[in-house]
């Protein structure tokens, strides 16, 4: 009795192993066949779709089973066409009901199908998809939310900016970098809602807004960021200094020069670094004056920024190698050393 059970167990185990192998092989060959068929279809449709894109011929009409292949081909060209040409392609897809099916698929049951549909709608840059994608920003699946945000950014419809910016306020559901990424892709049209967020009082959101404003580099944000430099929060001040360095411009530089005297070393360090990024030779003298600081980071950033200010910056560094303070001398020498090495190559 006991042996029988054992024998059966042994047999079952080995059969499962064999079944696993058979199933994998079968699945693999099925997949290969499907892919071959798909490749054939793509080859057949390629010439007519190309004719449609390049010569303005009408889009080939295909049965429902071949619409996915058609869509795939059109998507390949979407990144290369702009304006009216792109509209013509999406219109042709719409006539055949392809886009309508995609819009439906944004509400499909499996999350990966929803994500896939959202992705394609973004690649098609379909304005009509904005409401559906804004809806998908609240999808239970993180992936779908992610893709929807990315697609909204690709469509660049200003109507989507408030929804995206609003997502910044919910860090538990959103990765800051993702939303930031998409808002950056929207460019200056994202600045007004970001300035509104900056005026709010949620610390994390404000930090994110400052970072994104720095990346968008729209001078419209300069006054607001300069205002942050007067606030009491250390992190906000340091972030604002970094962002102002990216924006550049005379107003930003004046504010950054003032920030070199900030009571906190973190802000001084960021201001010094930002001035190097703005790379205006007139700031060399004040940077050199700020260099004898107690803090290592401030000294490093001052010296590295000076190295980026061209001849005047180098002159100041040479002068600093004869400074009374040994730490200042060392740092100036170190940067000149690295700068010399890099410059020689």
């Amino acid at each position: 009795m006991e042996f029988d059970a054992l024998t059966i167990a042994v047999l079952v185990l080995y059969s499962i192993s064999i079944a696993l192998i058979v199933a994998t092989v079968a699945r693999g060959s099925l997949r290969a066949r499907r892919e071959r068929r798909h490749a054939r279809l793509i080859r057949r449709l390629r010439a007519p779709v190309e004719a449609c894109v390049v010569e303005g011929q009408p889009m080939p009409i295909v049965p429902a089973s071949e619409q996915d292949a058609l869509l795939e081909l059109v998507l390949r060209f979407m990144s290369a066409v702009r304006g009216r040409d792109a509209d013509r392609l999406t219109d042709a897809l719409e006539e055949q009901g392809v886009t309508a099916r995609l819009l439906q698929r944004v509400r499909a049951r499996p999350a990966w199908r929803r994500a896939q549909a959202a992705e394609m709608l973004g690649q098609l840059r379909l304005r009509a998809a904005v409401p559906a994608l804004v809806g998908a920003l609240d999808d239970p699946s993180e992936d779908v939310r992610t893709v929807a945000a990315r697609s909204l950014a690709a469509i660049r419809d200003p109507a989507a900016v408030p929804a995206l910016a609003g997502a910044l306020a919910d860090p538990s559901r959103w990765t800051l970098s993702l939303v930031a990424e998409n808002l950056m892709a929207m460019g200056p049209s994202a600045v007004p809602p970001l300035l509104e967020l900056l005026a709010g009082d949620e610390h994390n959101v404000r930090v994110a807004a400052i970072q994104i404003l720095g990346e968008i580099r729209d001078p419209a944000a300069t006054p607001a960021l300069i205002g942050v430099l007067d606030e009491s929060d250390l992190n906000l001040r340091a972030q604002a200094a970094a962002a102002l360095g990216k924006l550049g411009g005379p107003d930003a530089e004046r504010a950054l020069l003032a920030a070199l005297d900030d009571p906190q070393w973190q802000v001084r360090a960021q201001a010094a670094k930002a001035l190097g990024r703005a790379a205006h030779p007139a700031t060399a003298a004040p940077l050199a004056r700020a260099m004898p600081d107690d803090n290592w980071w401030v000294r490093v950033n001052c010296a590295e920024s000076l190295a980026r200010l061209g001849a005047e910056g180098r002159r100041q560094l040479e002068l600093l190698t004869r400074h009374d303070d040994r730490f200042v001398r060392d740092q100036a020498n170190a940067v000149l050393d690295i700068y010399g090495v890099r410059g020689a190559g």
Partner: protein
Amino acid sequence: MDSLMHAINDFMLAYFFVINLIYTLLLLISVRESRQLDRRMACGGYDVILRSPLTLPVSVLMPAYNEESTIVHAVQSLRLQKYGEFEIVVVDDGSTDSTLDRLVAAFALEKVDRPLRLTLPCGRLRGVYLSRQIANLTVVSKENGGKADALNAGVNAARFPLFCAIDADALLERDALLRVVKPFMDRPRETVASSGIVRVANGCIVRDGTVTEVHTPRSHLAALQVVEYLRAFLTSRTGWSRLRSLFVISGAFGVFKKDAVLQVGGYRTDTVGEDMDLVLRLHRHYRERHERYRIVFIPDPVVWTEAPEDLRTLRKQRNRWHRGLLECLWASRRMIGRPKYGPVGLLGLTYNLVFEALGPLIEVCGYAILVVSIALGLVDAQFVVLFFLLAVGYGVLLSVAAVMLDQARSRRSGTPGDVARLLLFTVVENFGYRQMQTLWRAQATLDFLRKKQGWGEMRRIGFESGARPRKQARTQSASGS
């Protein structure tokens, strides 16, 4: 006597069934998890991460000790990584061959007087070198102090918020860095460490620093290790990662948040399992502070490594791995089975203590008792044969599942002939190879016990002081580079 033998036999049977039950559960969890990961990969947005200015820059740390034959090649291959901003920090750990000279010649290195912040203690530095040709290459030369010490020096020299520790003989796939950093982009606040799969490069064709064709190695020993690695990574680590109790992040390829590592005091230099030890201390740090954190394994980022093809080297490697595990378990003994430490303490460590650490000893005893039982006529020979077949069958099933999972997921497992050979080895490994491993690990356990008697006390003190949190590391990133 009879009843005692029966009790022991029953215990062995129970042990056998429990361990196989655990393997099966891990396998099922892993299959589910990797299916989900595959689906998610389709909309991973890797190109966005690649281009984004917000992508976290990474310092790739490569400790090298007497690697003159491979080091230049390794650096060149690293430069081809498809990643936004990253730097390469090679730490020459007091090599006695021409490792440093070759680097100097190949990349026009020049010694610079660059101040290095010694945030972590490490061996005396001999010099910092920068390249005339490549902007993101730094070479730190120091006196020999072992891999952990070299890594600490590398962390000191690293400029970026993430660092990736890799072996000098490892070959990263082009998009490996991008993929392994993805969890940090998805959840920047929580993720503290992530790692990818290590695969056996023997037999594969390598061109321009990447593996272009995958084949099952000719060497039988290497082929056995291919099966072993697939099983360990695909069907075990994926599962442990899902259960949030992963603490094995291989030293060959792992990415860490620098701040977190600085807070737990960096790598410990007095253990052979420095990689596992670090991850355990990270777990402990965050659990004790009740902070949310994630340590993940993802089976996409691939690093290729050369597996030893002779028994002697393999034995030494396995002996080191097992002693490393035992040292880590000993150092973290207070976490084992404690609910306070969450799934790591309850599941991960307990499992590793009972089945990985003590397992080999139990197995060796089992074999001995089996022999005695047969000699005394206590068990039926037919039963023994059937039971052995059952055990082999289970081993085969798990290995086949791992190989097939790999087949289903990726298309880079060689020709049908290669796969057939791998399947053959899933059977072969049960006759000799596994038993050999068991013996080696039992031997390693004895080595560990013998050594611990000598200087166990000192080590304990070292551990306690090593786990001290470091305050100053916190402020640095908010304001630094």
